[in-house]
């Protein structure tokens, strides 16, 4: 008998999708309201009744907390993203209600992925998620760059899905089962299969030797889609990667452990060296996200020293900062359209002080400069990893964040000390202003009032 109750959030999102398909034809704007309300209800349900969902499953309490917390973060993130997505799409003449449907499908896939207990469900969840991402990349069908991004993302993503399926079939050949639990005594075939599964997951989170698609896709897609790629699906895939690492005890299998460490080191280095010469904002952010993925892999490897809290802490700060950075960029428009080049940020201080100061806070936080939350995120990871004995990786991480500070600071120099080149339109989008100002406040205030977040992790893990 299938326990349908544990699938209640997924069924709820499916119901939202079907309702939006029907109502979207009649009234495009209504889909945003319906889905934002729906996700708020879902968040409330998950916060108060979430534990009853997984009572009949075999998950440990820690895993249930992990799944619930990530689902709550995902649904809060989707409320913000759904509300935010309307205006930029309208600015580009792209607003069609199908975009909201793609967001819902991607979130549904992420939910399925996070709480899956076997490789088959995880594969379908990942496919659902990435298919909608390909569509969001190619959403601007009249723009050649967007089409190119969609095709690149699709063909490389299909390749990685092939790797994933091949790996899963090898594991199935060996153990005759898809579940994570049955993988106690490994044979070599399962090991090779798991390596292929890991490669596919590294591709999805854009870790370094598998990152080739990231800058092109980030650059070509509509900016609002880029924000989505950088945040919610990546978060879900990372949580799933953590669950695989944790539940299959990958630290006990030498070959896979080395793969993890090498990927982590290469991500840290490629992320910074790629970013130095970039002249386009979105490519810079793409490489910076690769660098951050390196930090997150380091956190996944050394989670035992502190708790899952370090990973979540880094991820939450990263999500808040990325949402902030992109809502500033979405708000900056010239008469020719969006700003793409870094020089477009020249003299931002003169035209909009609040945007420039928020951007300064975000970039300092991404670089890990002390009073801001990003510093503490990096600090916790580094102290955990040094205590766990990852000396070389910690040194690489520190060196990479020193180099990263160079290009973050050069952006700040552009904003504060260069002359204004192009006149910016004052696009007064209240919602995205609210988002970047509140993210900046959260990131600054964390230094003075860190208790809520830390208490939350203490009580959960």
């Amino acid at each position: 008998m299938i326990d349908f109750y544990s699938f209640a959030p997924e069924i709820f999102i499916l119901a939202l999708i079907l309702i939006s398909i029907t109502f979207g034809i009649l009234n495009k704007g209504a889909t945003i309201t319906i889905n934002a309300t729906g996700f708020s209800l879902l968040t409330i349900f998950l916060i108060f009744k979430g534990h009853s969902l997984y009572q009949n499953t075999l998950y440990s309490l820690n895993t249930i907390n992990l799944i619930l917390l990530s689902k709550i973060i995902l649904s809060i993130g989707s409320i913000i993203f759904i509300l935010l997505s309307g205006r930029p799409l309208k600015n580009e003449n792209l607003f069609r209600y199908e975009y909201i449907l793609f967001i819902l499908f991607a979130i549904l896939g992420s939910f399925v992925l996070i709480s899956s207990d076997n490789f088959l469900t995880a594969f379908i969840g990942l496919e659902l998620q990435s298919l909608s991402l390909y569509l969001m990349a190619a959403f601007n069908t009249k723009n050649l760059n967007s089409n190119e991004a969609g095709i690149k993302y699709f063909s490389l993503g299909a390749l990685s899905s092939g790797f994933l399926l091949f790996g899963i079939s090898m594991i199935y050949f060996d153990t005759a089962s898809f579940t994570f639990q049955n993988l106690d005594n490994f044979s070599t075939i399962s090991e090779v299969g798991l390596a292929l599964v890991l490669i596919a997951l590294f591709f999805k989170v854009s870790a370094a030797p598998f990152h080739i698609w990231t800058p092109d896709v980030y650059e070509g897609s509509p900016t609002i889609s880029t924000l989505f790629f950088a945040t919610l699906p990546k978060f879900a895939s990372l949580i799933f990667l953590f669950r695989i690492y944790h539940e299959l005890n990958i630290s006990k299998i030498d070959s896979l452990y080395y793969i993890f460490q090498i990927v982590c080191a290469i991500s840290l280095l490629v992320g910074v060296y790629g970013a130095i010469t970039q002249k386009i904002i979105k490519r810079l952010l793409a490489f910076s996200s690769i660098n951050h993925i390196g930090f997150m892999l380091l956190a996944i490897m050394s989670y035992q020293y502190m708790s899952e809290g370090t990973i979540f802490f880094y991820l939450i700060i990263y999500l808040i900062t990325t949402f902030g950075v992109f809502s500033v960029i979405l708000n900056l428009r010239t008469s020719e359209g969006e700003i793409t080049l870094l020089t477009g940020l020249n003299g931002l201080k003169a035209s909009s002080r609040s945007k420039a100061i928020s951007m300064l806070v975000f970039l300092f936080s991404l670089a890990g400069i002390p009073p801001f939350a990003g510093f503490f995120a990096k600090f916790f990871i580094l102290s955990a990893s040094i205590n766990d004995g990852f000396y070389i990786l910690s040194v690489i991480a520190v060196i990479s964040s020193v180099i990263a500070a160079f290009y973050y600071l050069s952006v700040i120099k552009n904003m504060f000390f260069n002359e204004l080149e192009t006149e910016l339109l004052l696009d007064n989008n209240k919602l995205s202003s609210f988002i970047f100002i509140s993210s900046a406040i959260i990131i600054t205030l964390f230094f003075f009032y860190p208790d809520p977040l830390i208490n939350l992790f203490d009580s959960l893990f």
Partner: protein
Amino acid sequence: MFLLGTFYFFASFLIVTCISVIFSKNPVNSVLFLVLAFLNSTFLFILIGAEFVGIILAIVYIGAVAILFLFVVMMLDIQITSLMFNIKRYVPLALLFAGVILAEIIYLTVFKSSKSNISEIVKSSNNTEEIGNVLYTKYFIDFQLSGIVLLLAMIGAIVLTHVYRPSIKRQNIDKQNTTYSKDRIKLVETKSGEGINYNE
């Protein structure tokens, strides 16, 4: 012995057709070889007793996908020479990858012969019945989720290919339902022998 002979016949035939798919100069020939390759793999599946998967492969891949390919290839005007031009550049890379995978297979089969647990599942007498038993019970959620993936694919295909052109006249059902006949039709009294002046 007969079974082994048939297996080697179909397997080698499959490899030959796969090579022909890549190396034939005409894309239409490639697709036809692809159909042949699918057919051979169907036979391979039937040989190991997986008749359901074999038949599905024949129906879906040959009956639908390959024929669709054939239509697309016949309609596109592809410059064959430009496609063949770049192939030599990739030979070393391809050999490298093929070598790595070959080495892996040899390592796994020769040095680390592992016993698979899968044989009991495959050997059951009626393949179709076995799939039917688990598809709607054990894998019900996955089955439904694949349905959702197909729904997404459908919506996505429409979004990517549908171009809204204002110049095309469309049926607007809302507008049709909210108009009255008096807005569209003008009833005029005509006197015999005079006709009506249209411009009035």
